[in-house]
């Protein structure tokens, strides 16, 4: 009688270990399968980018010859460097303006008590949710007819100097996490509200500011609709997103060159991600977790 309990417990321990091992294998097999779905598109794009012109017309998946020169061909395409410069200008200047003008607004919405604050917050959220196409027709007429600025990126950059709803919303969410005591202490020490913001709160809000800056930078980098509306008439003002599409149009059958261009547009974003991974993830969770 006595050995039975030990035997069953050993058997059940064995069964449990086997179940855990099976579980491990199942989970990791699923993870590998999911990885294939996420990674294979990049792999095929890269392989095609390295094919010769004639091979790009076939169904062979592996390059017969490795044509690294495709990247140079794309790089030297007339206009490609201009698209880069324009995109950097749009994303860089746009981000500086948007974050700079949104900081005081987000600060007021997070730290001041005033009548109509909730209504103001509601307007920020409504503006954030508004599809850009809703107001595009009068906006275009305003920039093109009144100010004669179509064919440039200025109609996209200038509005960022007046606060960006998404940036305001995210920054406010972040500023709420900074305890009031800090600003109150500053106020008691006779520090003005603006000084309290610049000297005390902003240094503490650096991770939040970094996250929204990254977000905004990539919003501009990725924007297609804006440049299509305002810049399409002037190739000198095209951005990478808009230019890439036209590149495909000009190289109908050259999938290899189009994929090389696609790699060159994707690469900087992915490189930046590896350097700023923390800020990125922080920004994404900010959008959803608070509240």
């Amino acid at each position, binding site marked *: 009688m006595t050995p039975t309990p030990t035997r069953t417990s050993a058997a059940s321990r064995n069964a449990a270990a086997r179940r855990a091992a099976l579980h*491990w294998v199942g*989970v*990791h097999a699923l993870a590998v399968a*999911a*990885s294939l*779905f996420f990674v294979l*598109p*990049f792999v*095929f794009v890269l392989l095609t980018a390295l094919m010769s012109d004639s091979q*790009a017309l076939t*169904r062979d998946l592996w390059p017969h010859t490795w044509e690294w020169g495709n990247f140079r061909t794309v790089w030297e395409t007339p206009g490609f460097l201009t698209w880069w410069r324009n995109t950097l200008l749009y994303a860089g200047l746009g981000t500086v303006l948007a974050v700079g*003008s949104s900081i*005081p*607004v987000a*600060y007021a919405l997070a730290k001041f008590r*005033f009548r109509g*604050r909730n209504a*103001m*917050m*509601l307007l*920020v*959220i409504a503006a954030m*949710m*508004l*599809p850009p*196409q*809703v*107001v*595009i*027709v*009068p*906006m275009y007429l*305003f920039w093109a007819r009144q100010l004669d600025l179509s064919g440039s990126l200025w109609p996209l950059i200038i509005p960022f100097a*007046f*606060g960006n709803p998404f940036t305001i919303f995210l920054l406010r969410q972040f500023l*709420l996490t900074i305890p009031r005591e800090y600003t109150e202490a500053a106020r008691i020490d006779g520090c003005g509200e603006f000084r309290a913001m610049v000297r005390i709160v902003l240094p503490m809000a650096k991770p939040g500011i970094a996250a929204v800056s990254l977000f905004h930078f990539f919003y501009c980098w*990725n924007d*297609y609709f804006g440049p299509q509306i305002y810049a399409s*008439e002037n*190739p000198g003002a095209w951005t990478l*997103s808009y230019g*890439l*599409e*036209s590149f*495909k*149009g*000009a190289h109908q059958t050259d999938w290899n060159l*189009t*994929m090389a261009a*696609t790699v060159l*547009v*994707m690469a900087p*974003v*992915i490189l930046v991600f590896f350097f700023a991974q923390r800020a990125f993830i922080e920004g*994404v*969770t900010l*959008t*959803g*977790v608070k*509240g």
Partner: protein
Amino acid sequence: MRTVSAAARRRRSALRTLGFLSPWLLGLGIFFGYPLAATVYFSFMKYDGFTDPVWTGFDNWSYVFTDYPFFWPALGNTLWLVAVMVTLRVAFGLGVGLLLTKIKTGAGVFRTLFYLPYLAPPVAATVAFAFLLNPGTGPANTVLDALGLPQPGWFNDASWSKPALTLLALWGIGDLMVIFLASLLDVPKEQYEAAELDGAGPWARFRYVTLPNISPIVLFAVVTGVIETLQYYTQPMVASKVASGVIGGSGQHFEPGYPEKSTLTVPQTVYHLGFQRFDTGAACVVALVLFAIAMACTALLMRRGRGFLTAED
């Protein structure tokens, strides 16, 4: 004496608040208030952007709803995408998030790999998928062929173009995945242990512990997904242009929603009416329909997600 200084202090603090808010107040007026009012105004006008606008009452409205051949297909496609794409994205994002919580070995590497596609700029990702899925030389169909499976026409077949867009949207699941992962890790461990002691299996634990804990995040994902889908523009536009083989660039005309209007969404009709047909009035009508739907969804989000509004102080 004291009342005067209190009033002065109040005025000072009101001015200070106004000062901090001023960039946004100006922006709200110039870039939202004014154009929204102008959109309403133009929706009652015949206006081609060049000659003077002429009042035509509800002509634009009846034109859009009865004679404009692209409006109802676009609305139908947008609803299809809301129903299918949003649902699948939420389910897939949750599934991938759950998978990540179970991975013991190499979790960091897997998380990065799953997240990467989200970073691909939309135009680049769409051009990439238009290549991967092209029926002639696309690797997707090459692989399907090797496996003896049917090879769909994807972006060149009206019944496969929206599924192809959905596939592209699932590829870029990274944003939802991270949000779900964070909320899944926040579920208190004790609740799982208690459920396990009560003999709850994996499904019961998911149904009665995980889901109730993360339901606010699921709702958030659904509503923001709907709002994003209402703005869905770049991917269908680029996919249809690339698949139809239209030369891109300025002033080039293309068949909206190729193939057979199947990728046309409501925001694209604003572009089609306003910037290809120069029918400002009708474009404004569609813009207002879009506005009404977007605001209705936002109101839903507000009602359920009071937390976004109230400051916790």
